[in-house]
């Protein structure tokens, strides 16, 4: 019931978000026809604005946008001629989602074990070295880690291709450079969660029962310890699935992350609103799923 209610809240929330993005991007100085598509004369500019209905009052424009949205149409891109926003999303999003999902798996696959092992060996060298590595992963920006990985693995040792998207080998370096930060974050969250849970009474009870350390860790502690990671996965997945400008730019991957930045920079109004809506839908749905997962993992959490 609680989740149905929240699901019902989504459309109005999305409507407000769309309106906000719609207005914000139009209020910002500069317009879509400032740079490459700079019109030669005022007449042409007026004609262009009229063609995209940008000369109408903003509320009327928004109404028109909603009308299109009802038919699943985000409108035409103002920068890429003869492309609709839906076109571009349909082309670029699957690539970004694939890469994002891989990076998500990478982050969990390395972050969770690292966090658990660090927590198990608290205060020992395994803890210090893993915690340090995790912190390092969080502290080195992606646009440094990426080129360095390329330099080492693609150019120096020639293990993986330098760029492009396609085969399994192509996916390795982008996945690592995208997932590194998140792996570090997940490892830190897991370690903290684990340390907190290991102090709780029910763990002492489990020990008193004579369970083995591994059983205590994996069957009893982990379930609660990953709660911070679970709640972080919502925003993390939304970020990863909608692409990364840095990684897509570096490896020449035809994903949506590049569009996200470029459309905002070049005031491609329709594109920005479409992408903002896409991100918002993903984030809100994922957060809903995260909250549902919470009730499954932690029996103490009850949503009225």
């Amino acid at each position, binding site marked *: 019931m609680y989740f149905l209610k929240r699901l019902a809240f989504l459309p109005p*929330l999305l409507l407000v978000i769309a309106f906000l*993005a719609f207005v914000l*991007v139009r209020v*910002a100085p500069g317009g879509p026809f400032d740079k490459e598509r700079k019109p030669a004369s005022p007449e042409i500019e007026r004609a262009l604005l009229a063609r995209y209905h940008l000369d109408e009052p903003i509320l009327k424009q928004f109404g028109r946008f909603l009308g299109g949205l009802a038919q699943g149409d985000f409108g035409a891109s103002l920068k890429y001629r003869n492309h609709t926003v839906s076109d571009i999303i349909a082309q670029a999003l699957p690539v970004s989602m694939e890469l994002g999902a891989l990076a998500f798996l990478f982050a969990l696959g390395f972050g969770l074990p690292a966090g658990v092992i660090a927590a198990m060996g608290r205060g020992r060298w395994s803890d210090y070295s893993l915690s340090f590595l995790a912190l390092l992963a969080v502290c080195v*920006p992606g646009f440094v880690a990426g*080129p360095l990985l390329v330099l080492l693995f693609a150019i120096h040792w020639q293990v993986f291709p330098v760029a492009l998207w396609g085969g399994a080998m192509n996916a390795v370096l982008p996945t690592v450079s995208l997932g590194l930060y998140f792996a570090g974050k997940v490892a830190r969250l897991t370690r903290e969660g684990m340390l907190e849970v290991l102090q709780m009474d029910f763990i002492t009870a489990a020990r008193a029962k004579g369970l083995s350390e591994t059983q205590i860790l994996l069957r009893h502690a982990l379930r609660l310890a990953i709660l911070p990671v679970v709640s972080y996965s919502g925003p993390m997945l939304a970020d990863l699935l909608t692409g990364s400008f840095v990684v897509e730019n570096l490896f020449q991957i035809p994903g949506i992350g590049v569009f996200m930045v470029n459309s905002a920079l070049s005031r491609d109004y329709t594109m920005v609103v479409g992408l903002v809506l896409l*991100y918002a839908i993903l984030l809100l749905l994922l957060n809903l799923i995260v909250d549902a997962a919470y009730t499954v993992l932690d029996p103490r959490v009850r949503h009225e």
Partner: protein
Amino acid sequence: MPPIPYWIRVCAMSEPPHSPQRLASPDEPVAQSRRLQPLAGPNWQAWERFKGNHGALFGGCFLILFLLVIALWPFLSPYQANAISDLQFGAPSWHHWFGTDVHGRDLFTRVAYGARISLLVGATGAAVSLAIGVLWGAVAGYAGGRWDSALMRTVDILYALPTIVFVIVVLTALNGLLENWETHGLPGWAIQPLRMLGLFGGLGAVSWLTMARIVRGQVLSLRSRPFVEASIALGATHTRVLLRSILPNLSGIIIVYLALSVPGIVLYESFLSYLGMGIQPPQASLGSLLAEGAEQINSVQVYWWVILFPAATLALTLLALNFVGDGLRDALDPRVRRQ
């Protein structure tokens, strides 16, 4: 007799609290032993915990040393941060400790200069996020009801906007405003600092959301506590209750979150500089130096120093900030249970 001030009790403390002597002699009247027992205040206990955390102590010392170096270097350095020379891509040497960059500028001087800007960005961004976030969250949590839901729904909505789009829009709006002022006779020397202020403000404007949520949660639980109700019953105004009863109890969690958010803001500025939206050349931040260095990565000739030194400086600074932040959280956050 007036009560002994807290600081005197702390200074006079000769033995740790809860020492075994407290239980030693059963003949002694209980009341008297209680009264003689020195008390460690919560701040003192927090400091003790912080001191026990080697990583945090180390990080703090590193940060202080680092601040000294980057603050004093302009007076010691034989080089100007923007002085161009003929020595392009000079390798690290006795004259140029970190080598020189594409324009022959001394990299050590530029890193010291960039680190100042980066830390300034982090500190100001965090301060802006503190001001907005605490006010927003405290009002929402304290007022409750419709105010609460209106304010927090706004936070939810802003959360669902992709940060990068929001940042670009906010920064271009600010820059547009500046250009407008410039045409209306704003002197040229004021543009650069104002632009930088705009960047600081813009970064702060996108990072206050989590702060607002945390503060609201704390205020909600504080509001129903007896001492707050007592203060209201005694006729204190809302402002007074907020400032005198609630805010002091938030300070721990605010400091912790602030310390933890500085590295994030520094990192985000470096990303913006990489996009060309952050610090504008010839000014430098660690992020823009890194972005310049990353441009020079190629397979023909590796100028490792232009990337290694800024990256190492940024990583070390962020590591130290994170260590201090973690230490502060362990010391101050009431939610972290001690063993």
